[in-house]
Structures are given as structure tokens and as C-alpha cells.
């Protein structure tokens, strides 16, 4: 049975941090797979797309989402996060106007991001099923389906509201 520490030591996931505000303290934990970290790095270092929906740039939207999650701010269910399918060991989606992030909750208030993509690409190509299957496969390979995966699908199961 793996622990979060063992997953980090093995390089399967890495902790993600953002700059805290003056009075801010982390109340939740955020991790990403190496592939997700590479995608984040590309987002930060690439120019913003010519057309986007949100007033903030994609990188700003992600920073705000991560910051809100880490400092324990209330997230609005379905608008900012939701389970892709109501099932045991669900795959979850974090949302900004332009970005979708897919992953799962290792524990309550502890999310690991696996895939990120533009919201319009996810919707236009209906990528939900593919991401869900890929994340379930990854969890099986890591052997964490039973030990490091929140089973409930209600918002209160995965985040402190």
C-alpha cells in the first residue's frame, strides 16, 4: 500500500505550490503528475491564446484556482469543480473559464492533477471519457485505488466547504 510520501519519493507525483498572500496559509494539498507539471510549465511559458473566454489569462486563472484551493476557500460545486461521473473512486474536474484540469482526490482536501487542457477542446472533442479511463488506469498502475482515492462523490467528501 503506497503513501503520498512514497509516491512523491518515487517521482510519480510532485507537490504544487503557489505564492501565498501576506496572510495566507495552505489549508489543502495539491499535487501533479510529471506530465501535468510539464503542461503547467508550457502554459506559464507560452503566450496567451488570441481568443479566450475569461478576463484573466489562462495562467492567471490557474494561479487563482490553485491559490483558492490551497488556502481553503470555498469552491462552488459544478461551477468550479465536479466529479466527471458519479461513481466510486470518481475522477474529478477543476474548472476555470478557459481551462479544465482532471485528476482525483488522494484524500479529502488533497488533489492530484493528471491532465490539463483548454475547456473548448475538452468540450468540442468530448475528452471526458478518455481522461476518465486514463486516470483510472494510472491509479491502478500506481496501486492506489483502495488506499489513496476518495470514494465518495459528494462535494463534502472531497473538500472542506
Amino acid at each position: 500500500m503506497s503513501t503520498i510520501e512514497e509516491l512523491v519519493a518515487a517521482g510519480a507525483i510532485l507537490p504544487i505550490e503557489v505564492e501565498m498572500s501576506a496572510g495566507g496559509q495552505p489549508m489543502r494539498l495539491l499535487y501533479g503528475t510529471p506530465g501535468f507539471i510539464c503542461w503547467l510549465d508550457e502554459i506559464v511559458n507560452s503566450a496567451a491564446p488570441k481568443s479566450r473566454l475569461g478576463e484573466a489569462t489562462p495562467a492567471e486563472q490557474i494561479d487563482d484556482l490553485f491559490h483558492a484551493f490551497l488556502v481553503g476557500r470555498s469552491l462552488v460545486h459544478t461551477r468550479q469543480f465536479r466529479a466527471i461521473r458519479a461513481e466510486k473512486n470518481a475522477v474529478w474536474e477543476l474548472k476555470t473559464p478557459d481551462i479544465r484540469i482532471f485528476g482525483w482526490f488522494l484524500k479529502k482536501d488533497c488533489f492530484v492533477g493528471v491532465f490539463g487542457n483548454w475547456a473548448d477542446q475538452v468540450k468540442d472533442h468530448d475528452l471526458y471519457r478518455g481522461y476518465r479511463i486514463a486516470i483510472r488506469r494510472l491509479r491502478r498502475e500506481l496501486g492506489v485505488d483502495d488506499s489513496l482515492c476518495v470514494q465518495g462523490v459528494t462535494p463534502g467528501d472531497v473538500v472542506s466547504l
Partner: protein
Amino acid sequence: MTSFHFDIGSRARQAGRFIGRVRGEFLRALSEKKAEAGFSQQAMAQKLDVHRSLINRQFSGEAPLTLRSLADLAWAMDMEISFELKKPIARAGQNQPAATTTIKHGQIRFVKGEIKRNSVPAAPENRQPLQVKKSA
């Protein structure tokens, strides 16, 4: 332990978190209002004489929120907006947000195509959240 520090620079950070805080406050207020009997986005749209899809896109962040639209949405929800700008106050033991980034965050591209490198020094954020309050 290796970790990834997602750093977009202080200027972008302040802008993004401000926009996110305003939007989050409206989403929270909407969520509370929806719990009240007789309140719906359709009713809001009728009250504002706009299409419901516009209201939905404004709340989802897909349509821009102008100062006028913020005021209109708050009015339609029977809420009032409080807003203030104030100088940051340094307190002992608080975090010191970095004035410059320690990773290559590259360039920040603006909508009009103008490219500028982030150079504005960081300032501690206003710790008072923008609040949408029920009007008396």
C-alpha cells in the same frame, strides 16, 4: 523534496486573483440566493431584461464582467457591493510575496497583442475580500 512552484509574477498574480475573487464572490452569492424560494437565473434575466444565457456566461466567467454588469447583477440579487482600496500593512510573521519570480515565467501577453515583461513589484494583497452584502 522536489516541488513545483507555479509562479506567474506578482502583477499577473494580483490581477488574476482579484478577478477570481470577484467572480467567486458572485458565484457564492448566487448559490445562496438559489436556495431561496422563487429565485432563479431566469428571474434575474427578466429583471435585468437580458437573455438568460448572458447571465449564465457572466457567472461562468465566459462573458466579461464590467463595473456596470457587476452593479446590475448585485442589484438583481438584492445585494450591495462593498469595495475599497487600501495600503498594505506589513505585520510580523507574515509571508513576504516575492517581488520577482525565481523561475522562467517568460512573457505576459496582453489581449491587444502588446508584450510586456512583468516588472511591477509585489505588494501584499488586500486581505479584505470584496463582499457582496444583502442590502437592508
